[in-house]
């Protein structure tokens, strides 16, 4: 009877030290940028859809998510404020307090990329799977559209390398990050304007 208990204890300790390890690594990273590839598999699509883009993050609250192909678009979070643009329409400003969809989006993006993983215990069940962290929401409302999120970390930089989101019903999204630049130069302009579209 004691064996499983000590097994749980060892898993908990392992998770704790893993979180501490990536947390310490994150604490060293004030900002980063990377390229990414997003593969979306939805029952609604006839085949998987692949998007390419780039990401810029300045912790704790500035983030730029940009798709470069096949449909260019930009999403910016800067504190409570934000902006979204696509290739045709004018930029649209939003406020996280008054836009529930963008608030949810921001929560999810910061969940994967925020670097403060130790705080997730209150709202998520955390599991360590090799070099990955599997996150399952406790909240039913969030669980309606997110089954699990698995974040694989780079073994050296300890930054997210791959994020896999599995939705209830089987739809999934895989985002693979590459070409990381840590603590590089990230101009403020990136978080205030969409760029060429304006």
């Amino acid at each position, binding site marked *: 009877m004691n064996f499983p208990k000590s097994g749980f204890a060892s898993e908990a300790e392992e998770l704790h030290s893993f979180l501490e390890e990536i947390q310490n690594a994150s604490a060293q990273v004030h900002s980063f940028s990377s390229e990414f590839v997003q593969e979306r598999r939805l029952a609604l699509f006839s085949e998987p859809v692949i998007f390419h883009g780039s990401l810029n993050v300045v912790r704790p609250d500035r983030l730029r998510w940009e798709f470069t192909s096949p449909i260019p*678009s930009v999403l910016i979070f800067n504190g409570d404020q934000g902006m979204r643009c696509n290739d045709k329409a004018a930029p649209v400003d939003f406020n996280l307090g008054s836009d529930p969809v963008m608030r949810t989006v921001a929560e999810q993006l910061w969940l994967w990329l925020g670097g403060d993983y130790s705080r997730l215990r209150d709202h998520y069940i955390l599991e360590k799977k090799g070099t990955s962290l599997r996150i399952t929401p406790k909240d039913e409302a969030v669980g309606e559209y997110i089954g699990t999120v698995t974040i694989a970390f780079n073994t050296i930089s300890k930054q997210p390398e791959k994020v896999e989101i599995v939705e209830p019903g089987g739809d999934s999204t895989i985002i693979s990050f590459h070409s990381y630049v840590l603590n590089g130069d990230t101009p403020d302009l990136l978080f205030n304007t969409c760029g060429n579209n304006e």
Partner: protein
Amino acid sequence: MSKTAAFSRWLIMLLVFSLGLFFCRDLRLSEDAFDLLPGEAVQGDLRMLQQMGLVDRVFITVYADQEHIPRPVSKKVLQKSTEKLGNLLAESGHFSYVLSRLPEGYETALFAGLQPSLPLLFNEEDLEKLAAKISPDGIQEGLRNSFALLNSPAGIAMKRQVQVDPLGFTALALGKLNHMRSEYAVQIDQGFFMSRDGLSCLVVAEASGSLTDSAQAAEIESFLDDAFSQALDSGIKASVIGSLPHTLANSRTIKSDLRMLLPVATVLLILLLGFALRDIRALLVISVPYLAAPLAIGLTALAFGKLSGLALGFGIVLLGIAVDFSIHLYLALMAGGRNQGEAMRRVMRPLLYAVLTTSSVFIVLLFSEVPSHRQMALLAFSGIVLSSLCAFLVIPAIVNLRPRNSAQPQTQWLKFSTPKRPGIILLSWLVLLVLGVISWPQLRYNGDLRALDVPDKQVESDERHFNQNWGGGGEQAFVLATGANPDNVLDTNYRIYRFLQEQGVKKFQSFAPLLPGPQAQDRNLRGWQQFWKDNRVGFKDQFISAAVSSGFAENGFVPFFSWLDADPRHLSPGVFLGGPLQPLFASMLKISSDPLTGDTTHLAMTTVAIDDSILAKLLEFEEEGEGVHILANKKWQAEVERLLRHDVITLSCAAGLIITLLVILQFRNTRAVAAVLAPVASALAAMSVFCLLTGRELNMMHVIMGIMVIGLSVDYGIFIVCAKLSGGESTSTRAVSICAASSLIGFGVLAFAGHPALHALGVTVLVGIGVAWPTAVLVSPSLLVFGQKK
């Protein structure tokens, strides 16, 4: 007078007093502000406003106090304090409605709730936009947007919405939601109503009791103070605007004024009476009219079914006129020596004349448009008649209490009864009259009751702070829809919305676009059905073909077509009053049941920012549209001013005419009539000149007290002229002077009050009586003797 007769008289007096107390035993004073307003229409409008809860609403700004707290307060702390405060208010039982935030996730719940009913919201203009969305280009664009959205980070949260609405039909409902925004510059953040700078949150609450009642207002204020200290974190403050701070500021200023001025007036009155009468019995004399007061109060309350506090206060003040009759009677009997019968006969005539003329003035006031004026008129009339009877009954007994001091001192400085130079006196008087006649047309009547509101600095500062934070402050109209049943009300409410749209009005708040009446829902449904009858053929194939070529699965949009084929869900008030927008709907749609009759009243409200042109159009619409009521301060102000001006002119003319006729009938002598009316003319002229010099405005207090001054002044004239004609002038001059001085002290001290209403009251008496008194003792005798051979 025998001891038995005196005892019998005191016994009757005691019975009158006891009877009065009996009638007053269940007296409850109403502090209804509506008693101050003239006309059924205005009162009816305001009662509706009260039914909507707007009169008893408080607006609380919870804000981060950046000036006094050096560290910045976070939005989270501000919102936490606001939420805590909202919960305390809602749980307290003091408030029937509290709006501190919208429920979490209200946006998603709202759209999920509206989706099955969307076809009922789409009017003709919306169908035109739908036609563009289902065109080949519209379909392509809609699918491209949906594709991009699904692949964006927001795609996970929006997937179900896109499946049901790939072409963005729901977005048309967003524009309708904008009409739910209030006139205030708020942005909704996490459900909280926040200012643009993010430093303030708005809480709106409706008190269960009346906030125009000072006792209830004080109770609510005390509760709010406790709630603020419990709920607000360090660095967070709250300020309140609405009727609550106004009620309290007025009530406290009046109490503070009276606390300071009443003792001063009492001491001065005692000194005056002690000096002028030098007899302890004088205290009994001036108490006699007030022994009749309970019976007068009881009768008035019986006649009206209630008695307003204001009417009681002023009625008692007006009843003070009766003190003059007692003093005249007492002094005449004292001067009569052992021949009391003769003295009584001599004073009886002027006393009866005075009671008659004064009572007539108050009978005229019974026809006022203002309920509280009618109440105070009846109270003063019945009080004066009753207390005069009591005076005739008891004063002789009081005079007989001790042997008379035949060596009653005569105050020499009061003897003006035979003016030596009447010509100069009359010339001065004529100058005053001419000035009065010249100044009168330059005065204007200010019927705005806010002119009588105390100018409290804290209240003004809080209102300024509110306007800076939330905007507003401009003129607004509340357009109410009423009807025999809920369907009628919703139909009328929708007609109001359409009218405002047709007129191009931009700034208004209405729930009609989200909850049209049954007629509009039927009309929209027919339009929707006809739209798809005309467009459905080929749409599905065209859409699926475009979807597949855009990368979607062929069966990906089954939920969209299921929704198109389903019957729309009927929209009723219950859908919204039980839904996520409940706090907003509850403030705009009132359903209340009368516990006595069981009748249910439905009121739907639209708030419109107005200027003169829009108000005029709305008033025209009100005339034409059944069940439409425009509630606007500008409308009432104009109506109140018109009615009060009508009151002032007609009642003053009627009072003047009646007094003149009575005086003519009583004296039938031109000189005597002129002499009797001289103090009245002087008082009116002096008040007119004074008002011109101090702001050119007359208000309600000037009018009420003006009537009292007329009543007192004519009495002075009557006493002086009767005395002069009968040769007993010295006693009357003395009595008039004592009465005038006591009135000046009693009411004149109020000229030093901080409250505008009390100040206006005091000033009117001070100026009116201040001039009527010397006129009575100098001008009236001069008019009798001028030009006559000695």
